[in-house]
C-alpha cells in the first residue's frame, strides 16, 4: 500500500514537473511591461483626467476582502482589478467562502473585512456598520436609479452593485428546435402552447433540477419568481420583498400551482417531481444539450452558457445553444452581487471610485464576468451571449432581485423549503403559511 502511494506521489510530481517546465521555453509576454508608474503626466497637449483615481493611497496599502466567488469567478475578478492594482500599488487580501458563517463571525467579532462582495440582504443585516457609497466617492452617474434604490437602506446608499446575472432566461438547443419545427415563443401563451405541443410530440419540454447541497430549492424559487413577473409584475414581487404582500397571498399560490403543474409531472419535466427535486441544477442544464437531448428547455440564469460550453465543448453558442427571455415577463429577475465597505480608508475609496468609474465598468464588461450594472460598460461586452443579455437587461421594464436573497433572517431557506415540501406532495397552503411566518418575522410585520 505504502509503495503504491509513493509511486502515485512520484507520478503526480513527475506530471507536475513536466507541465510546469514545458512552457518555460515560450517567451513570457507577461514580463514585458515594466511596473506601471502612477499615472505620469500625459505628454499629449489635451489634458486627460487619469482613468484611475488612487485617492491618495500609498503604494502597498492593503484591502482585505471577502467574497463568495471562487474558481473561475475569482480569476475574472482578478482580471478586472488588475489595472487598479497595478496603478495604485494596492495589495489585495482576498478570501473566498460560500459559508456566510465566516463573514458573520468576522463581523460579530469586530474584525470585518475592509470590503465584501455579497448578497443584497447583507445591506440590511449590516446597515449600521457599512460606510455609505457617497462617502466613498462613488461615481453615482454611472448607475440607473433602480440600482441605487435597491442598494439603499433607511435612506442611505450602502452597496455598490457590481455584477448582475439575469435569471429570467430559458436555454435551448436551436438545432433541436429547428429539427422539430419549434419557434421561440413570443408570449406566455405561446410558451404554454409550445410546451403542450412538445408533449403532444412525445418530447419532454422541461429539464428541472433543484438539488444544490445546502441551497437546494433555489432554481425552483427562481422559476416561481419568473412566473410572478409574468402573472403579477415587478411591483408585486417588490411587495413580497418589502412585506406588503404576504407570501401566502393567492397570487403566490397561483404561481406555485402553475409551476407545480410542470415541475411535478413526468410529461412536462424529466423524471417528474422526483426528477425536479433530486437532479442537481447542473445536471438539469446538461440534459437539454446531451445527445440525444432528454428535454427541450431549461430555465436557468446566464451562467448556464458557460456550463454547456465546459461540458459539451463541441457545441457552439448560437447554432447549438442559445437562450430567450421568459416571454411575457414584465420585468427581469436577476441575481446581483454587491460591494459593501466596512472601512473608509483611502484604498477602499480608490476601489469604489475605480469600480464605479468608466474604466471599471468597461473592464468588467470586457472580462465578461456576467453583466455590470455600471452603465459605462454597457457597450463594452465582447461575448455575444453577454451582449444579448445586456440588451435584455437594458430593455427590461423593471428589475427585481431574487426574493430569497433580499429578505434577511433565513427567509431564503424557508422559501426553498416551501417549494421542496410542495413538490414532495406536501400541503401547499401549509407550506406557504410557514414561509409567510418567516417572512413576517424577518420583516417585523
Amino acid at each position, binding site marked *: *500500500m505504502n509503495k503504491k502511494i509513493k509511486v502515485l506521489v512520484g507520478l503526480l510530481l513527475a506530471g507536475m514537473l513536466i507541465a510546469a517546465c514545458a512552457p518555460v521555453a515560450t517567451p513570457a509576454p507577461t514580463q514585458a511591461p515594466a511596473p506601471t508608474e502612477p499615472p505620469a503626466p500625459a505628454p499629449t497637449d489635451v489634458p486627460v483626467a487619469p482613468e484611475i483615481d488612487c485617492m491618495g493611497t500609498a503604494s502597498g496599502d492593503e484591502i482585505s476582502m471577502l467574497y463568495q466567488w471562487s474558481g473561475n469567478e475569482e480569476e475574472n475578478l482578478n482580471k478586472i482589478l488588475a489595472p487598479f492594482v497595478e496603478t495604485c500599488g494596492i495589495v489585495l487580501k482576498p478570501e473566498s467562502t460560500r*459559508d*456566510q*458563517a465566516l463573514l*458573520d*463571525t468576522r463581523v460579530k467579532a469586530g474584525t470585518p473585512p475592509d470590503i465584501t462582495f455579497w448578497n443584497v440582504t447583507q445591506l440590511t*443585516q449590516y446597515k449600521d456598520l457599512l460606510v455609505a457609497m457617497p462617502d466613498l466617492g462613488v461615481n453615482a452617474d454611472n448607475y440607473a436609479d433602480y440600482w441605487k434604490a435597491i442598494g439603499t437602506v433607511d435612506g442611505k446608499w450602502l452597496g455598490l452593485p457590481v455584477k448582475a446575472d439575469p435569471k429570467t432566461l430559458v436555454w435551448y438547443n436551436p438545432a433541436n428546435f429547428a429539427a422539430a419545427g419549434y419557434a421561440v415563443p413570443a408570449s406566455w401563451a405561446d410558451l404554454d402552447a409550445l410546451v403542450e405541443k412538445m408533449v403532444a410530440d412525445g418530447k419532454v419540454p422541461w429539464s428541472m433540477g433543484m*438539488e444544490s*447541497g*445546502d*441551497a*437546494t*430549492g433555489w432554481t425552483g424559487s427562481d422559476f416561481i419568481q419568473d412566473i410572478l413577473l409574468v402573472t403579477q409584475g415587478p411591483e408585486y414581487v417588490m411587495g413580497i420583498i418589502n412585506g406588503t404582500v404576504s407570501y401566502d397571498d393567492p397570487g403566490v399560490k397561483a404561481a406555485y400551482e402553475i409551476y407545480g403543474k410542470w415541475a411535478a409531472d413526468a410529461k412536462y419535466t*424529466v*423524471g417528474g417531481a*422526483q*426528477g425536479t*427535486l*433530486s*437532479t*442537481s441544477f447542473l*445536471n438539469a442544464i*446538461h*440534459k437539454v444539450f*446531451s*445527445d*440525444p*437531448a*432528454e428535454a427541450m428547455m431549461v430555465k436557468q440564469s446566464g451562467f448556464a452558457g458557460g456550463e454547456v460550453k465546459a461540458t459539451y465543448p463541441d457545441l457552439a453558442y448560437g447554432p447549438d445553444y442559445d437562450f430567450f427571455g421568459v416571454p411575457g415577463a414584465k420585468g427581469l429577475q436577476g441575481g446581483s452581487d454587491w460591494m459593501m465597505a466596512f472601512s473608509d480608508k483611502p484604498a477602499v475609496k480608490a476601489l469604489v471610485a475605480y469600480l464605479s468609474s468608466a474604466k471599471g465598468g468597461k473592464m468588467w464588461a470586457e472580462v465578461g464576468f456576467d453583466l455590470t450594472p455600471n452603465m459605462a460598460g454597457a457597450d463594452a461586452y465582447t461575448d455575444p451571449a453577454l451582449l444579448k443579455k445586456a440588451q435584455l437587461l437594458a430593455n427590461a421594464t423593471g428589475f427585481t432581485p431574487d426574493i430569497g436573497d433580499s429578505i*434577511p*433572517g*433565513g427567509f431564503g*431557506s424557508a422559501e*426553498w*423549503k416551501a417549494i*421542496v415540501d410542495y413538490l*414532495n406532495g406536501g400541503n401547499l397552503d401549509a407550506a406557504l403559511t410557514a414561509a409567510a411566518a418567516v417572512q413576517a418575522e424577518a420583516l417585523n410585520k
Partner: protein
Amino acid sequence: MATTTVPKVMKQGKLTPWLYLLPALLVMGVFIVYPMINTISLSFLNADGTASASTTCVRGRPCWGLFENYRYALTAELDLTSFSSTWKSFWSSSYGNNIKWIIIMVTGTVGIGLGFAVLADRVKYEALAKSIIFMPMAISFVGAGVIWKFVYDFGTKQVQIGLLNAIIHNLGGKPVAWLSTPQLNTFALVAVGIWIWTGFCMTILSAALKAVPDEVIEAARVDGANEWHIFWSVMVPIISPTIIVVITTMVINVLKLFDIVYVMTGGNYGTEVIANRMYNEMYKSFNTGRGTAIAVVLVLAIIPFIYMNIRRFLAQEAAR
C-alpha cells in the same frame, strides 16, 4: 477510593500537581469553559443578544418567558395539535433524526465492526482487510462528501454519474433519489457515517477479542459448543465492557454529528440533525439566542452518556 494508586514514598509539594495541570486547565478554560458559559447566557437573550428572550414572544402564541428560546428549540419543529401529530412530527424533527441516527449508526458500526473483527481474525490477509475498513477514518468529511456524490447522484439516461442509480438502471429499475426522498435520505447519510466509523469500532473490538484467553474458548469447545455459541455465550460476555464503551462513545459521536449532513445535504429534505439545526440558526438565520438554546439542549443530551463512560472508568480504577 482511588488514592491508593499513588505511591506514598515520595513527598510532594502542594503546588506540584497544579503546575502539571496548569497548561491544560488554562487552554481548556479559555477554549471550552468560557465559550460554554457565554453560550448559556446568550441562550436567554434575543436574536442578537441585546435583550431578554422574553421580548421575542409573540402575542397570542405560546411563550416561555425567559426560556422562550428553549421553547423554540424544543417545540418549534413539532406539530402540537394532537398527540398523533406531535408523535409524527417528532420523527421528522432534528431530534427524531438524531435518534434514528443513533439507532442505525450504532447498530451498524458496532455490528459490522464486531462481525468483521471476528471474521477477519480467521484469514491471512487480516491486516490488509482491517486497514481498508479503517481507511475512511483518514478521509476528511469534505472528501467523503465528494466521494459519495458519485455514489448517490440522481441521474437519468444520458447523464448518469451516480453508481447506485447506474446499477439500478442497468437492472431495469427506476432511479432512486437517495438524498432527497425524506426518510430514505437519512438512511443514505447514515450509510456514509457507518462507512466512516466502522473502522474505529472494529479496531477496538478486534483488539478486545484477541485478548480473550484461549483457554476459555478451548474449554468451551471441549464442552462441545459450536462456534456460534462460543461467540455469543463466551466471547461477547467477556468483551461486553468494551462493547459498552464503544457504544457510548459512538452515541456521543452521533449526537455531536454535524459534518456529514453539512457537507451532503445541508439539512435539506428533512435530514437536519441537532448540531446542524444549531449551526443553521446561528449562522444562517442569525438567531444566536435560538442557536445557543439548541446548543445547550444538545449538551444536556450528551451528558448522561459521558457520565456513563466516566463512571465506568472510575469503577474500573476502584477495582484495581
